[in-house]
């Protein structure tokens, strides 16, 4: 591990340069695994930490940005309102990468409105939901993704059917939708990499067990259930352009998804034949998997060509926040003209 930390990437940074403050989450919390994979992915992708911003809402999940990439700007905002904060912030400099970290309460309860609208606008943002079905910071209440019938210590049984974040993201026209599991770090890392190279919103719903309040073996959001019910759609790898030739798969076994920037996602088929490019088929596949009581993981839907929010705004190459003040104020003559027009 120590060895790993010292290894320099192509921009001369070690993994330690991607670390944040020590985690104050519970030992074994699924969110720590997410943090670890974000660090690994950004290190391996050679992302300068200053070129990325991290934004979150409120909750255990939303504490996570403190624990990775200390050299990146971060903003721990309001409960359920991370998407709007990220939208405004990324307008400041559209060359920045954005990672939004949210939770199931933050996204599927209080923040459902902003979640649906940020997917609709296709903001270039890696939107990670650390989904554990439970409110941790307030100590163990049901979240909107908790399954019907789940029993929690002080809450009794959950009366309501759950919200499926992946389903909502697809219905909300998100251009990249995936599900992963904190217990499947390799897949999670590949999805994070792919998401960071996607030009638009990349939603990854990560089942991330809460070891303190919701890790009973039979619970949908537990390690045990996840491990025994996970069905990966494919073996997924993210390929930067320079290495593309090195990867060899037998014909017919793989599907290549070209990204806007020349990178590729390579999906190697597993048990089922699934192409993640059709919204209706994605929903059908999810519904059938639910009936079979499976935890489907992998890239569920992608449209790399959908226009991003910033494609709609004809902004200058110089980031807005670096435009000099004199370029922001129209001329004195133009105001004279307006005064003439105002009767």
């Amino acid at each position, binding site marked *: 591990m120590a060895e790993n930390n010292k290894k320099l990437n192509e921009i001369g940074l070690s993994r330690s340069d991607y670390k944040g403050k020590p985690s104050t989450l519970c030992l074994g919390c699924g969110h720590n695994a997410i943090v670890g994979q974000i660090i690994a992915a950004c290190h391996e992708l050679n992302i300068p930490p200053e070129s990325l911003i991290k934004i979150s809402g409120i909750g255990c999940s939303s504490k996570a940005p403190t624990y990775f990439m200390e050299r990146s700007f971060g903003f721990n*905002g309001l409960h359920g309102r991370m998407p709007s904060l990220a939208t405004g*912030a990324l307008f*400041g400099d559209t060359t920045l990468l954005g990672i939004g970290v949210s939770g199931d309460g933050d996204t599927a309860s209080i923040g459902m409105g902003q979640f649906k609208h940020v997917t609709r606008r296709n903001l270039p943002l890696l939107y990670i939901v650390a989904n554990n079905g439970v409110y941790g910071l307030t100590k163990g209440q049901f979240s909107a993704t908790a399954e019907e019938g789940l029993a929690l210590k002080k809450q009794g049984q959950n009366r309501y059917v759950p919200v499926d974040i992946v389903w909502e993201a697809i219905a909300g026209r998100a251009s990249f939708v995936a599900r992963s599991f904190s217990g499947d770090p390799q897949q999670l890392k590949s999805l994070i990499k792919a998401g960071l190279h996607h030009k638009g919103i990349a939603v990854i719903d990560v089942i991330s067990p809460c070891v303190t309040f919701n890790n009973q073996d039979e619970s949908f959001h537990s390690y045990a259930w996840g491990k025994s019910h996970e069905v990966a759609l494919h073996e997924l790898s993210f390929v930067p352009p320079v290495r593309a030739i090195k990867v060899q798969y037998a014909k017919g076994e793989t599907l290549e998804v070209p990204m806007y920037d020349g990178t590729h996602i390579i999906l190697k088929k597993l048990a089922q034949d699934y192409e993640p490019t059709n919204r209706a088929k994605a929903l059908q596949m999810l519904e059938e998997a639910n009936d079979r009581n499976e935890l489907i993981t992998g890239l569920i839907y992608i449209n790399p060509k959908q226009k991003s929010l910033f494609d709609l705004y004809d902004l200058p190459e110089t980031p807005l926040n670096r435009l000099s003040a004199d370029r922001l104020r129209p001329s004195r003559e133009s105001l004279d003209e307006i005064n003439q027009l105002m009767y």
Partner: protein
Amino acid sequence: MAETNTKTKPPQRRLSGVNEFSINIGTANGSGSQTANLTLLRAIFKMGIPVSGKNIFPSNIQGLPTWYKIRVSQAGYAGRRKEADVVVAMNPDTFTADQDDLVEGGLFLYDEAIKDQIDRDDMILAAMPIKEILREAKPHKDLRKLVANMVYVGVLANLLGIEMEPIEQALDFHFKGKKSPVEFNLKVIQLAFEWAEENLDLNLPYKIERRELTENAILVDGNTAGALGSIYGGFHFAAWYPITPATSLPEAMLQYAPKLRVDPETGKNTYAIVQAEDELAALGMVVGAGWAGLRAMTATSGPGLSLMAEYTSLAYFAEIPIVVWVVQRVGPSTGLPTRTAQGDINLSYYLGQGDTQHILLIPGPVSECFEFGWKALDLAEKYQTAVFVLSDLDLGKNQWMTEPFEYPDRPIERGKILWEEDLEKIKDDWGRYKDIDGDFIPYRTVPGNRHPNSAYFARGTGHDDYANYSEHPRDWEKNLNRIKNKVDSSRQDLPGPVIIKQRGAKHGLIAFGSTDAAVKEALDYLKQDGIKLNYLRLRALPPAQEVLDFIRKHEKVYVLENNRDGQMHSILSLELPGKADDLVSLAHIDGLPLNAEWIRESILQEENL
């Protein structure tokens, strides 16, 4: 004291004659009367006579009664007058009620198709054969209803002496030079003019006579002025959600920014405007943008402002510059969405959980909506905090005569932002919330700065000088007190009060915002009544030293405002608790702009006269 309290009412003052009268036009909402009303207003303005227009409209798209009040005033009075000298009755539903507001001997001009009873015998009556005139004009059937209103424009032009050339200019302006609607509307106006010439011989005391009193003035609404002020203030980012009566501000930005804010070098936009899904998201985007170094703003009204509380509190505590235009309407709750008030002073001043207090700019004349538009953006960045611009429906949505917009007299001020080269010089001694200069204002970096020391973690939770999470009592107290001192230190930097003194006055009057016009008119009347008052128009909170001195120097100070509880009176009482007994609240709200008569009567009563 209500307007209907007639017992102590002094005799009504006659404000009727050449270039000094009011017209009240009653129509149904959605009938296209706005074009006709603005044509009258603009034509009178073009004839050089000060004029103002107030749209008293319902919360409705089509069918409910709406009124347009035009006040022609050579003396320059722009406040609302309750009574009218001329009533145009186009709406059968309000036909009876519209007669009530007419002065004795006033002109009651109505659509002859309305067969309702005429209740008064002290009015000059004239029935317009609208159908007949339209039959002659032969409009397309889709246009019939819309051009019907042009009939009263033509009749009034004839009766009052409004010239045809300025009418044509007004139409040309309204239809942006499109020939066919200008010609057609003009045709109806001319036919109506001719009909009046041949059929009416009323010898009215009300006349328009050309003057040269509007040459150095413009006619515009406050929301357009605020939008332009923001554009010239170099806003980068605006997010908003539709709400009456604020909507026309961002809409004016959408109209003007594409013309004014395209970079001449690159042809690209130097701004972005996003219509958000609600006010929570609108302000969330603005806070994100402000954090990222954009001059960011929104515009809203009471209900939207309530939704913005949590993000405002975050902006205050995380020290993010934001500008919020509050175009006030009547609350509580949904209240009267299309009526005016000054009822969100407290809400704006203290918005957010915990100890919060914000900078408020309060424009009076519409020219200040422009001026405060750019100043607000400077102040927000300078003090790294929320700045509210408090307008209202009367100011924002109505047409006012005002001074031409003045080009900003100083360059854009971005405040203490550190870029890569700045950090190189500072080296290690940088903390986001560290008060390096001893002026309570820390330095900030913004995302996109690529220096390895640039980043910090913004948060709404407790933090130390270096933006690290902290629950330490000492950190909390020090930080929150610094923020308080920071906002407080802006007092002398904000637009100062405008004071008009009268020799020998012992009592003072404080007012602010859109009531200015009515106050000035009332002060003239009070002078005739033998009452002298020094008048201070407050333009910002927290109040400047001059405001406090003004209160200290007077035996008694009236605080006049358009709300129920005297919110500004309370704020000023808290500023000077020792003088609170000498501050007298004159607060009134019924949905309409305060008028000079009410102000005069209230003060006469207080002065025991």
